[in-house]
């Protein structure tokens, strides 16, 4: 898993193609997982409200294929109940996604990718442990409304094993609808850069 995170980080910092785009994105949605156990009790409610907010950086390979990375904050709020306790969790995590996208036409784009995300709060990080990070498979469908505004349907699916103590406040999977605002487009060639 460390190799995956390294690959994602390196790829997200080494993009150098001709056209680039900066965007900001806000998504609202629903996070969930099939089963959640706390205190040896199976929880009835395993879902959470979610907000993602962050910036995207896109680089075009050619007219159709592009790569996209970004930096996101991911907030989840959920309510859970066991026999002795009802509690509300509020959770903010940082996510680093990397996608490969395909521009279907001038209106629709689709991308798949992966992300790394902190699995623990900073004060619980132990660099000798393997469970500091979580890894998700991502999909993103984008509808281009106009030059400035796009709408997205984003999903995440956690792929690594982790105990429920980490996902109880940030469930494994998510479905989000979002708005993307195009900040700027630049057109550069490699020759320009040299």
């Amino acid at each position: 898993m460390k190799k995956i995170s390294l690959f994602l980080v390196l790829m997200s910092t080494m993009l150098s193609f001709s056209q680039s785009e900066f965007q900001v994105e806000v998504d609202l949605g629903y996070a969930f997982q099939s089963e959640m156990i706390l205190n040896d009790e199976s929880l009835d409610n395993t879902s959470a409200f979610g907000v993602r907010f962050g910036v995207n950086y896109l680089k075009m390979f050619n007219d159709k294929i592009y790569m996209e990375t970004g930096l996101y904050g991911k907030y989840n709020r959920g309510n859970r109940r066991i026999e002795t306790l009802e509690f509300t969790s509020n959770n903010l995590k940082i996510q680093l996604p990397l996608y490969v996208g395909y521009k279907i036409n001038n209106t629709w784009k689709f991308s798949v990718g992966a992300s790394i995300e902190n699995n623990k709060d900073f004060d619980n990080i132990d660099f000798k442990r393997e469970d500091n990070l979580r890894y998700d498979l991502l999909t993103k469908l984008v509808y281009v409304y106009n030059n400035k505004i796009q709408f997205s349907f984003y999903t995440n699916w956690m792929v690594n094993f982790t105990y429920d103590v980490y996902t109880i406040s940030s469930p494994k999977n998510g479905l989000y609808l979002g708005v993307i605002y195009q900040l700027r487009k630049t057109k550069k060639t490699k020759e320009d850069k040299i």
Partner: protein
Amino acid sequence: MKQLTYCILIVGFMCGCTNYDDNIKLNVQDYKTLTPENIDTNLKVANLILDESEFKEMYDNYTEDIEIQGVLNLYKNGVILIENEVVEVEIKGTFSAAFELKSLGIKFDDTYNNEDRKLIDPEILPFHSLDRVKAFRFRNSGNDFENTMLKDMSYTKLAVNAGLNLDLTYAEQTVVFVNNKFLGLMNLRTEANTNGMSRLYGVSKSDITLAKILEGGIVEKKDGDFDRIDDFIAAIDNEDYDYLINEIDVDNFIDYMIFESYIGNRDWPKNNVRFFAVNDGPFRFVLFDLDLVATQDIDSSPMSFINNPIGNPITDLFNIMYANENFRQTYDVRFQNLINSALLSSTRFNEIATEYKSNIEHIMPTQINKYNTPETFTEWYLNIDHLKNNFEARENYVR
């Protein structure tokens, strides 16, 4: 490259946070109005009667060796078990003494007769005795104070249930009051020192030779025949197998090394080692202080725990013994038998941790209200699940 990954994410980590808002469905007792008489619990309740100003001075100056005298009363379900027993009280612990709730060492004026098991009544190993107790402590669960309040006890009970050939401390969960005011939920625990070992074997303190290995592998001679301790350490330095095989209780040493390395105690053996002998008997090793077990390097082999990078006599002793074919064979067979049995399984560990959790579940909200650690009842439950998960992860790795 690993560092690069972490550097990039570190800013993000610093922003990440989780919090929980509790709505507890239990009857939460207010610690400010709680007394030994009105507390609703099946646990033992201790009430120490101490001079308020002396206690405050001792508590505030916990790094100094201040000992005060007082009286102990112990109740269970409103029935008095021990009445007005004169005791000496002092603060115990090193790092854990900095916590707001501090461990208290309790020493009886005379050795306490516990034949009726009124003071402490845990399940014990058949070769131990708790009939007499000279000293014990109300322990704040050490470095686990901020997490579960039951970690050390759970690991110790696992060893006892497995019937390992170990010397250890015994504990019972207890609610402690000082001058009728709620001090906190603590673990009434026997001692791992000369007093503790002499009582376990029903011998006089003067019959015990005991040494410690402190942080960094430094040997500290505590009591008894110091020349014998010196000779023992010299034999380790000289790799004198023939001397050492006769100086240690081999079965005890094997179980001790297997258990500590199986559970993954990173604060050992360069620290937290005590070995002792009764008169001319062989040296035995004491299992204690398991607060930092399975917190780091869960995916490391038992041998890597034994071969701690910080040099220490126990690692050296083990390597001398393990180089011998007979010892190695005995060790490996015992290791496989124990690991493959259900005795040290996560199933068994979970049962123990769940039992201890259930015992204190009703009093933890009160404890959290007073000490704000862990910050919420939810986090306490999560910490216990985390404790179980770590054991399971360790078990899966070792097996």
